[in-house]
């Protein structure tokens, strides 16, 4: 028990899981027995969730948003990797720099331009998500690449590797695990945006539209239920990404302080 409050302590997994379980239980009990006036009660949220699942197709809408988000993430990852890796050539560095700075563009202005350029609502939705995710991913990925030390590059060169081979070995292969971590961290941005974009382009539905409708009619219990579903989906995604990292890059965790 004492070790749970000691700095840098390493409680046993069983102790730690029990502690997390107790914290969640406490939160649920507080919610159950001391409901806030404006905040829907646990029972109301569960009832709203059941209604959303049975009559409003929550799972189908979630699936539609999830597939769209995953598609956008795949495209954005490819684009961002390409932009980041191209920074090996000085000619392309301004491009990656500019892409990174485009994080500051607002969504409203962006969707307007996308709508002018593209024909269907789906394309606009996908384009906005890919664009937004790419600019964040490029920022994280170039940052990972910049963490490459002189020592690492020199090491590859002393083994007789040319400049491209050194880059491939040290930056591309050597940093893949970190790149996956960047993708995991930035996936959340797509979820933030998708709910916004789906309200702008309603023809394809999606969990964002469902959330918008609940919000519009002040169904706070429904809003909270959907938010919790998104939260659970995000947590599952995080877990899957961590699992992929452990399976494909087992070395990545070896030097991390435990």
């Amino acid at each position, binding site marked *: 028990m004492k070790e749970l409050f000691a700095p840098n302590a390493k409680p046993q997994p069983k102790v730690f899981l029990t502690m997390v379980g107790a914290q969640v239980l406490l939160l649920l009990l507080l919610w159950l027995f001391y409901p806030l006036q404006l905040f829907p009660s646990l029972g109301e949220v569960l009832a709203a969730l059941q209604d959303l699942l049975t009559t409003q197709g929550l799972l189908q809408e979630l699936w539609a948003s999830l597939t769209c988000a995953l598609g956008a993430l795949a495209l954005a990852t490819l684009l961002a990797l390409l932009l980041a890796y191209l920074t090996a050539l000085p000619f392309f560095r301004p491009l990656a720099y500019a892409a990174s700075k485009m994080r500051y563009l607002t969504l409203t202005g962006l969707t307007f331009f996308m709508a002018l350029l593209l024909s269907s609502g789906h394309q606009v939705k996908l384009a906005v998500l890919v664009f937004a995710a790419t600019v964040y991913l490029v920022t994280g990925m170039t940052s990972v690449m910049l963490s490459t030390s002189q020592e690492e590059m020199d090491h590859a*060169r*002393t*083994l007789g590797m040319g400049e491209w081979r050194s880059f491939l070995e040290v930056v591309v292969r050597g940093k893949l695990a970190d790149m996956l971590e960047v993708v995991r961290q930035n996936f959340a941005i797509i979820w933030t945006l998708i709910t916004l974009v789906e309200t702008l382009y309603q023809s394809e539905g999606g969990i964002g539209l469902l959330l918008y409708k609940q919000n519009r009619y002040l169904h706070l219990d429904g809003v909270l239920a959907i938010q919790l579903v998104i939260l659970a989906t995000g947590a599952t995604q995080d877990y899957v990404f961590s699992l992929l990292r452990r399976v494909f890059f087992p070395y990545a965790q070896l*030097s991390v302080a435990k």
Partner: protein
Amino acid sequence: MPDYSYQEPVLTLRNISMQFGGEVVLRDISLDVLNVVRPGMSQGQVVGFYGRSGIGKSVLCRIIAGLLPPSTGTVLVANPQRPVEAGDVGFVQQRYPLFNHRTLFDNLLVAATRKHAPAEAKAKAEDFLNRFDLAQHRRKYPAQLSGGQRQRAAIAQQLLCSEHLIILDEPFSGLDIAMIDEVKKIILEVTALDELNTVVIVSHDLATTTALSDTLWLLGPERDAAGQCIVGATITKNHQYNLAEMGLAWQPGIQAKPEFVQLLEHLKDEIRKS
């Protein structure tokens, strides 16, 4: 008549100077490392390389390793002599870098494939795993190795693809006495692998390094006639010590000899003065 002779050059530095943004770091360095031959013996040699911290030792090492082109001058390696290229000289940096995303065996294999066909490279990597007592760790990643194992792996990796020359940057730093003995053994084993193998040891551990060396270099500023330091460090003729000529090379228990102790004191004074 000495029981050794010098033959073809192994490493030659001619008029090496280095400037960074107008600041002269190294100046007019000319050195020759010749193949030393001892009758009835096949063994390489060790060069000890000293100098104060921040004087430019690492810069010179990177120049010798072909990683950094000097502002002026040339570095020649191999026989016949040719300008150095990255990959000709092995360079084991202070933190023993390895590819963290590759297993130990893969780390050695990637180095061996540079000089050998795939099947031969595999056999070479296996051979080096055994020679460096690392066979039982072949499937481990670098992060799972101890400091000593990492160092052995880094040396083995560089030896698998370099042309006889290998630079060790601070190989004794932070090691306990047992590990220092272990590293000394490895260095002597490396020199025994081939007549032309030459190990340059960059170190602040004067006693250990001098006891292993055939030659010493001391990098420091030169003084003019008025006693003022000339900008840029160099290795003057006075600071190139041929320990074989001085009768201080290749002797077990050399550290107990008064001449050796005197040399150490002299080296310390020279380093302090610089």
